[in-house]
């Protein structure tokens, strides 16, 4: 299958797979970090041992997931220079600024403080330790913000001027205020909370259904998860609705599936940019958009019903069909998010920077053999790691709060 693809298609596939893999983990990171920070705040304020155990258990799952987010993110960052040097050459003066700020303002601090949060568990004052998880959460949000500013520029370029064959930065305020970026930021943050809420509810429901020893622990956790999932779903949908206002005409036309409208947009773009095919792959755009919308409807009804059910204690304790459904729903927000990204990114084609640089012109001067090699290397490494890490995540979730390494007091030998 790969043999029939040209270098651009291979490079796009590589980017799509690594970005997709990255986002699977990042989405849960955004949601779980927030929930862990809130639970740890509760634990720190009340000194409640139960909330401290919740912090450690959900924190452990958060870290297993986070580690994969980091390593997939590394490959993402370097891929711009590796595969898309036409983009860095053309738009680097503008696009590079927000990427640079992401690494320095957000990720540098996030990684440093996360290390301190994990390894400094019993060494730091509890308020200092609590402040760390909040910094980690807020810098994760900052990271998402700057990445979506970068992505928003590709979707809807603003604040630049064309100088020869490169772009020049003229209005950074316009880039940061880009509606295509800000709406997506709200949409992604809401989506992260949906993923995190459904995850927490689903794992808790597993323990309630299996009647494991930790009933109180998981009843509390289930309420947190369901309590977050419903408002987060509504918030995400609200930003998603706004997103349609900032959408490119070709993406909208492909989504509507209206043949006349598609032809009109194509004719308009050909008149503006010269002869060529300016339509995104219509099947992918409408298919992924439809998947996202359908699953959104499912999540909305399910989280609303769950919200009502959780108000009744006997149901939280013993409604096992509901518990089973909650667990079965865990993958749904992930699939919805990936569909959303396919919709957004496929719908931007054939442009890398909308209206300015075509994806095929953004490609690095790389041979097919080199591109194929890197694609196979990344697929093999991440393929294995994704399977192993999801297995570990499920295993840790099943084992419950008594077997958590995070914050475990290890026998300390005196320093000399």
């Amino acid at each position, binding site marked *: 299958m790969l043999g029939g693809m040209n270098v651009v298609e291979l490079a796009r596939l590589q980017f799509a797979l690594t970005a997709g893999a990255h986002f699977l983990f990042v989405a849960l990171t955004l949601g779980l970090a927030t929930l862990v920070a809130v639970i740890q705040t509760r634990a720190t304020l009340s000194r409640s041992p139960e909330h401290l155990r919740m912090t450690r258990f959900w924190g452990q799952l958060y870290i*297993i997931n986070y*580690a994969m987010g*980091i*390593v997939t993110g*590394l*490959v993402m*960052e*370097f891929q711009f*220079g*590796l595969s*898309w*040097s*036409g983009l*860095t*050459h053309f738009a*680097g*003066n*503008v*696009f*590079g*600024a927000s*990427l*640079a*700020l*992401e*690494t*320095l*303002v957000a*990720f*540098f601090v996030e*990684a*440093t*403080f996360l*290390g*301190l949060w*994990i*390894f*400094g568990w019993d060494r730091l004052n509890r308020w200092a330790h609590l402040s760390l998880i909040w910094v980690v959460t807020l810098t994760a949000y900052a990271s998402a913000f700057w990445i979506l500013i970068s992505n928003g520029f590709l979707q809807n370029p603003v604040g630049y001027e064309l100088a020869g064959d*490169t772009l*020049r*930065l003229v209005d950074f305020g316009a880039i940061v205020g880009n509606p295509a970026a800000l709406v997506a930021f709200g949409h992604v943050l809401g989506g992260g909370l949906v993923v995190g809420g459904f995850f927490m509810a689903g794992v808790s429901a597993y323990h309630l259904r299996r009647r494991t020893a930790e009933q109180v622990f998981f009843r509390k956790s289930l309420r947190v998860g369901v309590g977050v999932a419903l408002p987060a779903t509504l918030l995400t949908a609200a930003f998603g609705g706004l997103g349609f206002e900032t959408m490119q005409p070709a993406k909208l036309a492909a989504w509507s599936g209206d043949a006349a409208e598609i032809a009109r947009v194509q004719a308009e773009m050909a008149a503006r940019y010269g002869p060529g095919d300016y339509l995104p792959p219509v099947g992918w755009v409408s298919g992924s958009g439809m998947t996202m919308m359908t699953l959104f409807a499912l999540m909305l009804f399910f989280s609303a019903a769950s919200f009502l059910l959780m108000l009744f204690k006997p149901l939280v304790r013993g409604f096992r069909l509901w518990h089973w459904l909650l667990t079965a729903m865990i993958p749904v927000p992930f699939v919805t998010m990936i569909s959303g990204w396919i919709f957004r990114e496929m719908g931007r084609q054939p442009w890398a920077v909308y209206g300015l640089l075509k994806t095929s012109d953004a490609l*690095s*001067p*790389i041979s097919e053999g*080199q591109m194929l*090699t*890197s694609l196979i*290397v*990344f697929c093999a*490494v991440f393929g294995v*790691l994704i399977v192993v890490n999801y297995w*570990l995540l499920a295993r*840790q979730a099943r084992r419950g709060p008594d077997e958590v390494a*995070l914050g*475990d007091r*290890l026998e300390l*030998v*005196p*320093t*000399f």
Partner: protein
Amino acid sequence: MEIFILGFFTIGYLVLAGADIGVGMLLPYLGRSADERREVITSIAPFFLGNEVWLVAAAGVLAGLFPELEGTLLTGNYLAVVALLAGWVVRDMGLWLRGRVDGPHWRLCWDGAIVAGSWTLALSWGAILSGILVEPLTGLVAALATVAVAALFATHGLSFAGLRLRGELRARAVRPTGAADERGTYALTAAALAALGVLAGIRLPLAASAADAGTLALLVPVILVLIPFLVLSQAWVWWTFRHRVSGPSYL
């Protein structure tokens, strides 16, 4: 100033994360049993996240301040950079995963990933750095230069392990260099890695490939203001874990 910023993060990476790479390369020598290896890993565990992020920052600075060079440098070293990334990912995952399941085969497998990943990282850096320093570089000379850079990472790892470990593990770390003064050895290997970074920087067309003036005027002051805060956040980690390893950690 933009050259100083790129150099700051790149050299910071080579010196700080270079020690993690070196310790990973020599893990089988430093730790002979699974428990010993866990203690050796504890010497780098609290730091490796905060150390590797210096390269993420350097790449971000490259993208923001030297976008043209970002493309030519990475595309020009395509396979070496792909190997570097693969080694990095495998090494990190080895560190994260080795303790997640309690079993000798599991630990051995991920200890192997740490060692293989660290060697891949060191050799990829060797290929990239020596390729920048001596051009064109082919055949035996290229192989020797690559191995020499990797050996420098390994020595730097030993000197760091000598500073952090105790007892027999510390003795093992000190033995090959034969130095009684551990701080002095660390300073020496750190200086050698920093010098390598400076020389590579001199060979690159940095001044000619900086971003447009408008971009620099925005980013350079912001980054200069940020740097003290970033260093302070890292200093908190170094201060918290300033003592020698006194027992196993989370990893």
